[in-house]
């Protein structure tokens, strides 16, 4: 196994992990603060990607489109919070599951009616090609930008939560809701703001991943499960947990897909290894999650003591 | 005094950096009513959790009826005859008072891995459940859902659930919390009636009740037992007065 291969796979894992983090961060906040299971979180990711694709078409600028999509998705998220989700906070998790599952169906079909099943979204032309980061390794410049954006958002989020007043309230709310209420916070408004921020994070992930993956109806569902895995590994309500969990899932998943088939080939017949490899690689993150929950039933960084 | 039914040897528990229970030793004899008093935050409820098995101690041993039960789970200790009630009422609110009680009877009357015979046809369960309901003064309230009982009735049911497991020792965690004078009086009579039959470790803020009921009293302050003795002894104890009674004279 060469160093270049390892480096490239690490970058891939980092890129994937950081995008997962953007989704997981919002999810874990909504979960931690409002005690709300929001399966429709992935739908906001989809809406973000579709808005970005639309705005690229209208404005011609990728980065302007990302900014607009971010704002648009935040508005959609807040509207959703005020109109529907707010009514579910006091309900049990089962009702939340059913309601937000219903929202997924509604969101998918609404997007399909408005935009059709998919939209083209390309990376900005300047980033279409590769750059040589070390001799012998040409790496997609766009993926590097994704990593940069992911790191920047993570840092901004850390700053916002550690240093700002809203961040302090969010932390208080995540570890103890009664305390936030006791502090006289306008909980309703705080929830709406948090939800808007979570939606905006979704939009960043959707817009950034759109050019690599595909902007299509239903794109949110599979990544949603991964985001849930991440926040459960990290500990619900913990941003730090979400970051660690996301990177763990990103790296483990990428490395598993990359190296497990080879590893198996050392022990097994080639055809058997070829069959088992992808299956085992797909299981890996779930094994990771089950193992972590077995030893730490509250995740790695439990937000509530 | 005979061999202690419950024997607590230097048990300790801390949460993070806070020491809640600090090397407490304590004995309760069979049939004895032993009161545990102390100011708020002294660690009384934590101690009940440790004794009942809801929490595992960081150090020390708990011996019950001669056996070391430190590693035994909550439900196993109940099986041995060590039952508890809760400071914050913990009932099956969607079940009727009678069903609440029948469940507690069911717990110790054979296997519950029975899938076919309707519970409703098991008369023995309900007869005994009715008897306990009568004992705690809830006869006639059998069909009322536990969540709909008056506060005092719920507190009585709370004690009754523990009683219905036929314990050798009852851990009562502030059974009279929030009760009116009449209700308290009834409960005092109930506990008094258990004397000699069932050992009781009573945690209570109502000092009138404590001094009327207790054979012996232990005083817990900041996680430590600072004194144990008969009611008169405790009344006279200078350290207790300073640490505790000085601020809160018994009525």
């Amino acid at each position, binding site marked *: 196994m060469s160093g270049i291969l390892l480096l490239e796979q690490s970058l891939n894992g980092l890129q994937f992990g950081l995008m997962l983090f953007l989704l997981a961060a919002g999810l874990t906040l909504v979960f931690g603060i409002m005690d709300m299971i929001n399966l429709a979180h992935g739908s906001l990711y989809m809406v973000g990607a579709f808005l970005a694709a639309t705005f690229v078409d209208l404005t011609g600028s990728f980065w302007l489109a990302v900014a607009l999509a971010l704002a648009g998705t935040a508005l959609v998220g807040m509207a959703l919070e005020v109109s529907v989700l707010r009514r579910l906070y006091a309900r049990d998790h089962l009702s939340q599951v059913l309601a937000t599952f219903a929202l997924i*169906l509604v969101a998918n079909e609404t997007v399909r009616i408005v935009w059709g099943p998919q939209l083209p979204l390309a990376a900005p032309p300047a980033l279409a090609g590769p750059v040589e980061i070390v001799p012998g390794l040409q790496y997609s410049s766009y993926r590097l930008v994704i990593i940069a954006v992911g790191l920047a958002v993570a840092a901004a989020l850390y700053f916002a939560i550690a240093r700002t007043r809203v961040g302090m309230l969010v932390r208080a709310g995540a570890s103890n809701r009664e305390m936030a209420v006791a502090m006289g916070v306008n909980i309703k408004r705080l929830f709406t703001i948090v939800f808007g921020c979570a939606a905006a994070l979704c939009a960043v992930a959707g817009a950034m991943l759109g050019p690599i993956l595909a902007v299509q109806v239903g794109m949110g569902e599979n990544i949603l499960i991964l985001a849930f895995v991440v926040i*459960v590994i990290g500990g619900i309500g913990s941003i730090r947990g979400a970051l660690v969990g996301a990177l763990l899932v990103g790296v483990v998943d990428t490395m598993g897909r990359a190296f497990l088939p080879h590893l198996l080939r050392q022990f097994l017949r080639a055809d058997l290894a070829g069959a088992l490899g992808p299956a085992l690689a797909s299981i890996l993150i779930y094994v990771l999650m089950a193992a972590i929950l077995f030893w730490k*039933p509250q995740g790695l960084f439990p937000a509530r003591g | 005094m005979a061999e202690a039914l419950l024997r607590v040897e230097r048990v300790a528990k801390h949460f993070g950096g806070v020491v809640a229970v600090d090397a407490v030793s304590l004995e309760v004899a069979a049939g004895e009513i032993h009161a545990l008093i102390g100011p708020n935050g002294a660690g009384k409820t934590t101690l009940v959790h440790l004794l009942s098995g809801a929490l595992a101690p960081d150090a020390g041993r708990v011996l019950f009826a001669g056996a070391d039960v430190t590693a035994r789970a909550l439900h196993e200790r109940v099986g041995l005859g060590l039952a508890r009630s809760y400071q914050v009422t913990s009932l099956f609110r969607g079940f009727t008072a009678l069903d609440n009680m029948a469940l507690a009877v069911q717990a110790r009357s054979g296997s519950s891995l029975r*899938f076919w015979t309707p519970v409703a046809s098991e008369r023995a369960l309900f007869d005994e459940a009715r008897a306990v309901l009568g004992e705690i003064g809830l006869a006639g309230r059998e069909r009322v859902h536990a969540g709909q009982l008056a506060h005092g009735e719920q507190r009585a049911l709370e004690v009754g659930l523990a009683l219905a497991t036929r314990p050798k020792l009852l851990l009562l965690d502030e059974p009279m919390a929030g009760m009116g004078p009449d209700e308290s009086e009834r409960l005092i009579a109930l506990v008094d009636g258990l004397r000699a039959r069932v050992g009781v470790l009573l945690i209570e803020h109502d000092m009138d009740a404590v001094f009327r009921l207790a054979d012996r009293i232990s005083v817990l302050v900041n996680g430590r037992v600072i004194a144990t003795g008969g009611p008169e002894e405790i009344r006279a104890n200078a350290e207790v007065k300073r640490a505790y009674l000085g601020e809160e004279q018994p009525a």
Partner: protein
Amino acid sequence: MRRWLPFAVLAAAAAFPLVARPLGWDFYIGFASRIMIYALAASSLNLVLGYGGMVSFGHAAFVGAGAYTVAVLMAEGVASAWVAWPLAVALAGALAAAIGAVCLRTRGVYFIMITLAFAQMIYYIAVGMRAYGGEEGLNLPTRSQLGFGLDLKDDVTFYYLVLAILAAALYALRRTVGARFGRVIEAIRENETRMDAIGFPTYRYKLVCFALGGALAGLAGALLANQNSYVNPNLLYWTQSGTLMIMVILGGVGYLYGGVLGAVALLVLEEVVSGYTIHWQLGVGAVMLAIVLFAPRGLAGLAQGRRDG
């Protein structure tokens, strides 16, 4: 539910093929079998989720395990229902016991997610079983052999068998929830700590309940494999677990007929709405949302509430 209503529905269900066959509605006989199989699967989840209070997000794994048992045995030449179906039940139950033993260490959302994780593992194992179709799935050359001159290839015979099994299972469920065991798991759902404190080993009872639910799901899976004459990993995918959960919540959590009502409602709704528009998911989603917001106890709760009030 009024006392006679289940019997009336049962009688109507028994009469259905007598009407449908002469009219040539063969498709709807198969469709009704399918609904009943899902009703069985949803009812098995209702035992775990509704009565036991364990929000399992991995129930499809047990349905799939049952289905794959039948399919794999048939691929290996064992077509007898008397061998394959009990084995499907046993395997699914054992799988549930093993998974439950680990998952029940956790609580709340963590439990939801860890059951999902295990189900996904089983899903990918099914994908990885290339000898048995892998991602493609596996066709069953025929339906299971029952003997007694009964041919399950005949849709009406199969329909009656499914109906009989569903009715028997619901009756057994009714007995179980009314028996000691049912009391215990319902009480655990109400207040697990207190159950512990009056002397019940709650973990053990929850595990038994989880395994029973899994075993019953395995039976539904065995029937589903026969109904479709086909199994594929999709049966175990998390969206299938989600669908079963939706059926239970829709029908009414912890109501005996909740799973049945939910399965009927969801599948019929899908079939009807998808006949009118390709955007049927919009309609189904809207109906589901309305039920959560306005009928929080599901359809069974709605029916009961109306009579109570």
